[in-house]
């Protein structure tokens, strides 16, 4: 049976039906170098070898990886535990190992090289996530099913929150030192990985809508902490002391 004929969606989200698309998004969030166009990768040697392996994978392998990574991220967790669990991706099948190797290759580059690549990768990620969000947004507004609308709304808002956070980080990066840029972008990429995998886990029925909402609450809390939004005051809104 081919992967295309296996229906893994318990909660259908058409925007995520393309297994290659969702795999490449998740792979890029785990190892940003995998999302950078080949012509822009200047380094050679092991990096090239490992990246080449990523271009020769079939859909069954992608499905095994997605199944494994959604299992990993389906436990109840905080944003702090998320980073700890992300490290276990390297134990997932050979694809997980390859992604881990690519990420290790990236870590061994010089600081200017890392910043150069992370900036390119951020641009690619923004485009990728914007496309995904737009698809889910259209699917939500056209939905005839109220329950489906609700989970699509939560999913779209998760991606929108991540996108806002990532765009703001990139926008403000010109005034920051290289190590700060790198840390901030890496932090938001970790958050994005967690979020996208949780949406896929929900689609597969591995977590429920309540847990998906918790994902949204966690990333909103986390993003608001780093970038403090001014309180939203509506005309007749008064917070009264009890």
């Amino acid at each position, binding site marked *: 049976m081919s992967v295309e004929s296996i229906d893994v969606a318990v909660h259908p989200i058409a925007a995520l039906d393309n297994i290659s698309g969702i795999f490449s998004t998740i792979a890029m969030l785990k190892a940003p170098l995998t999302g950078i166009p080949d012509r822009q990768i200047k380094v050679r040697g092991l990096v090239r070898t490992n990246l080449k392996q990523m271009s020769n994978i079939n859909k069954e392998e992608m499905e095994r990886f997605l199944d494994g990574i959604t299992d990993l991220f389906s436990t*109840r967790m*905080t*944003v*702090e535990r998320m980073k700890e669990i992300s490290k276990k991706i390297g134990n997932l099948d050979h694809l997980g190992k390859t992604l881990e190797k690519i990420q290790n290759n990236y870590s061994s580059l010089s600081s200017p090289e890392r910043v150069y690549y992370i900036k390119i990768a951020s641009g690619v990620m923004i485009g990728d996530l914007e496309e995904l969000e737009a698809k889910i*947004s*259209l699917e*939500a*507004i*056209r*939905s*005839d099913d*109220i329950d489906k*609308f*609700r989970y699509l*709304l*939560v999913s*779209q*808002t998760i991606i*929108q*929150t991540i996108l*806002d956070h990532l765009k703001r980080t990139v926008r403000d990066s010109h005034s920051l030192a290289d190590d700060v840029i790198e840390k901030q972008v890496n932090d938001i990429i970790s958050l994005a990985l967690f979020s996208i995998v949780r949406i896929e886990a929900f689609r597969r029925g591995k977590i429920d809508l*309540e847990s998906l*909402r*918790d994902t*949204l*609450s*966690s990333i*909103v*809390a*986390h993003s*608001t*902490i780093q970038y403090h*939004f001014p*309180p*939203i005051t*509506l*005309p*007749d*809104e008064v*917070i009264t002391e*009890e």
Partner: protein
Amino acid sequence: MVDHTPDTTIILGRILNDRHGSRSSAVLNEIPNSRIRLLNEVYLETQSVIEKKAEFALSYLQRAFKEVSTEKGIDPADLAWEDVPEILKKARFLAHDRNEGFFDSMEEFIDFVKQNMVYHPYDSLSAAYQNIIRSNKEKIRTIFGVQKIDQILVNEETIEEDELRMEVESLLKGQIPSLSEKERDRDLRIVCQLFACSKKAHESTFNFIIIDKQLKVEMPSVISIVKENFRERTGRVTVQNA
């Protein structure tokens, strides 16, 4: 403006009353640093209630988008801002059995999104949803004590928790001989953890609500012992919300 923040005592009750459930067990008994976990759960549960209410209100708007677009013979994604008054009118009609607060909130969400220049009206649903979560997070911060929730979510610090727990445990072990051993161990653990909570976030009335309400119902004798023996440590905590 309707306050979308639910009563925190209700939220706490939902978590704590299900004391033998896996969720509260995980929060209170199994996870190290349980005080932080407890407050994190409270935060997530509070947000979840807000999110569900928002999804419900926005689902009426989505249905209105669909109906107006059907009447006009166009895709809901193609509706323009000049169609929004009609969409709101339709949403009001669809939700005719809801209270005024429900309608007010729908309109204010849309007004807010309009002011924030969302390009496509249909994207207002997700943008409004995100803003509801963000704005209510500010209210939750107010309830919990400004900045406290950030510390809870980001810095997993405990102050005095172990020391305090030992002191309270030692005190109560000698003074509640009537409880059977199994129940006593369980209740002592909860009492001590809750008491530690109150000490840490003394600027907020929230923590004392846990102790006062929970203990008054379940173990009225305990609260007087705790108050009497730890008077100076609970002096800044009030019961005005309880």
